[in-house]
């Protein structure tokens, strides 16, 4: 087998999968599948991501999330919290899982442009002996107690933050709601910008998206996000949103979730009771749409979100595990993308954004 192309996945809820879903991510996917209880699989899907599988798929860098939110009405994951002190606890637990894996030599935190460059060289030199690179990201800022706590999170390695998730966070309206930023958002955004932390525009309500774009002076991206022009719904980016991400030199990580990829996906029906009607080609359609708008592939990336509340059932039909994302190389090649473009989509674009953003740190 040829060496897989280095892939940066800009959104994986690894800690959530390990801690809240109780999966051992250090074993093959097949072992997790043999171990997962049926009710868990029914609700969260069949496992597609473990560390051996990331290696097999050339995923040498992941944006691993701290993922917890205020969400009292959450009956699905039963992890939505009432107050920020609870989110802070869960969030630090997610961080600590990654730290423990760094101690065990499974992961390595990437915090500076130099660390990124060194990691890529190591991975391409001797990938088997190189830990998987981790960019610490956060989905919903609820676990940051306030702007005064941003330096502490930065020290811990936090480099990209989305302000909301589903529902209304402590700082902004998120997916499934309508509204803008809340009063506490602005000081938080300023603190994030000062630290060169990237603002993840994924999971804002529309009004909040535009207010955040105006209020935030730093670098922006969208960690796991598809195109509304192809799949209608608030969860996707409108063309105007894509345009502003391009203007701000951001990157959009296209996701695997059939919810965001398949117009015939029935949201009311559990994932285990239906099949996606799309293949990995659909991801290429979204990448194409962004590339056509930009006139280049510079703003395209991959943020699979695999095992982020869904599994194999809710993924493209031809994806069994995350390692199958490598098949996008052939798909994009057949669509006429150059190898340079494909490398950009797989890793170069996100790495450029990370390094540019981190050099903009002012405090």
């Amino acid at each position, binding site marked *: 087998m040829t060496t897989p192309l280095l892939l940066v996945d800009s959104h994986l809820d690894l*800690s959530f999968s*390990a*801690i*809240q879903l*109780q*999966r*051992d991510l*250090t074993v093959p996917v097949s072992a997790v599948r043999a*171990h997962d*209880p049926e*009710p*868990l699989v*029914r*609700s*969260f899907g069949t496992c597609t991501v473990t560390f051996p599988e990331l290696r097999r798929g050339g995923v040498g860098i992941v944006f691993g999330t701290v993922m917890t939110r205020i969400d*009292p*009405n*959450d*009956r*699905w*994951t*039963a*992890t*939505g*919290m*009432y*107050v*920020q*002190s*609870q989110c*802070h*606890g*869960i*969030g*630090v*637990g*997610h*961080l*600590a*899982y990654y730290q*423990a*894996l760094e*101690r*065990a030599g499974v992961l390595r935190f990437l915090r500076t442009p130099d660390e990124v460059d060194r990691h890529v060289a190591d991975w391409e030199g001797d990938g088997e002996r190189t830990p998987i690179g981790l960019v610490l990201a956060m989905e919903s800022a609820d676990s940051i*107690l306030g702007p005064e706590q941003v330096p502490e999170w930065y020290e811990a390695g936090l480099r990209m933050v989305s302000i909301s998730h*589903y*529902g209304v966070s402590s700082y902004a309206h998120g*997916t*499934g*709601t*309508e509204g803008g930023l809340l009063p506490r958002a602005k000081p938080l955004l300023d603190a994030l910008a000062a630290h060169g932390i990237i603002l993840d525009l994924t999971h804002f309500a529309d009004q909040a998206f535009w207010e955040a774009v105006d209020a935030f002076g730093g670098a922006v991206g969208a960690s796991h996000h598809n195109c509304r022009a192809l799949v209608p*719904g*608030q*969860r996707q980016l409108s063309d105007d949103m894509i345009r502003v991400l391009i203007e701000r030199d951001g990157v959009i990580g296209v996701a695997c979730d059939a919810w965001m990829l398949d117009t015939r996906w029935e*949201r*009311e029906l559990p994932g285990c009771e239906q099949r996606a009607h799309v293949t990995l080609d659909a991801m290429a359609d979204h990448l194409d749409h962004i590339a056509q708008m930009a006139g280049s592939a510079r703003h395209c990336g991959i943020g699979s979100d695999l095992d982020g509340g869904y599994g194999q059932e809710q993924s493209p039909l031809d994806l069994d595990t995350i390692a199958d994302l490598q098949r996008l190389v052939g798909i994009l090649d057949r669509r006429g993308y150059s190898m340079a473009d494909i490398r950009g989509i797989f890793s170069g674009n996100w790495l450029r954004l990370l390094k540019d953003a981190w050099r903009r740190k002012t405090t």
Partner: protein
Amino acid sequence: VLIADGHLPLAASALALRRDLTQAVPVLRERESGARRVPSRHKDSLERRVGPLLAGQGPARVGLPEMRAGRVGLAVALLGGRVQTSGPDQARGGRTREVAYAIARSHLAYYRALVGEGELAWVRDVAELDACLGAWERPTARTPVGVILAIECADAILDAAQVAEWHRAGVRSVALTHLGLHVYGHGAHARGGLFPAAYPLLDALAASGIVLDLGRLATLALRETLDRWRGPVWVSHANAAALAPAPENLGDEAIRAVAGRGGVVSLACSAALLTPPGTDAAPAAGADAAGPSLSAVADHVDHVCQLLGGADHVALGTGLDGSFGRDVAPADVDTIADLPRFLDILRSRGYGADDVRKIAHGNLVRFFRAAWSRPR
């Protein structure tokens, strides 16, 4: 009288059972009843989905307002997280050491946030202990509850080299195992001793000044631990096996061993550890249908005091709102604010004011004060 609780899994209740402990118990119960839940009608909302992770949890019994109402002003607050490959809680524990570590860190972070809000106050040394006792001489509705941090099961400690880090974070007590097979040895419900990694861990704990909770060890593991360990010992959450022969309860010999080393046994308010011989399926004849009450806890106090000839080595370690939300509280404990009634039961059995004070908090306070005054 101030009550010190030697075993409270506050953070596990807050994070795993999603209870905002700054709220009063009736608020927590109303939230858990779902009565006020109105799912969003937004097309992109997730609120209509229902998943399998909802714990079948019993009613909340511990909120900080109830702790204050019951004058439970000092607690040994647990950092949970363990690898659970066997034992009665197998389905509920974590699967890897990294997850056990992460959960303990999440609990630490929660306590830290509540200290930041002034709801809790760290008790990590003699000065902080005295400050806590002083504050509870004249408590107000805002007096912070003092917390002594304890690691419930050493699985969360990745190796001996990490002990110093946990000590710096404020941890002052560690138990080696939980129920079943664990990273450092065999716990209650299993049969076997310590694993080799336990010895450097014990040495690191001793060097840091952390006290050892001898609870929930298998018989052989307990013997091996006592052979090695020279530092302070206590048991945070167990009753007398002579009255209730659960595997996690202590035989008379073990109780004497703890007391002989100056330790304290904090008695548990968990039904399974209080009930007389019998099985869950077939309770012993004469057992109260509603389950044991606080007078059963007092029976265990009596037993320990008679065994040791005094009340110097017994305390309370309720474990309320632990057990993954299963309802195991004594029948007459609606909330933790009912604990003063336990002291009334002791008085009615003839315990003098001095003894009641010792059992309520004095013994635990003396034990930790002595541990923290030892030269290292």
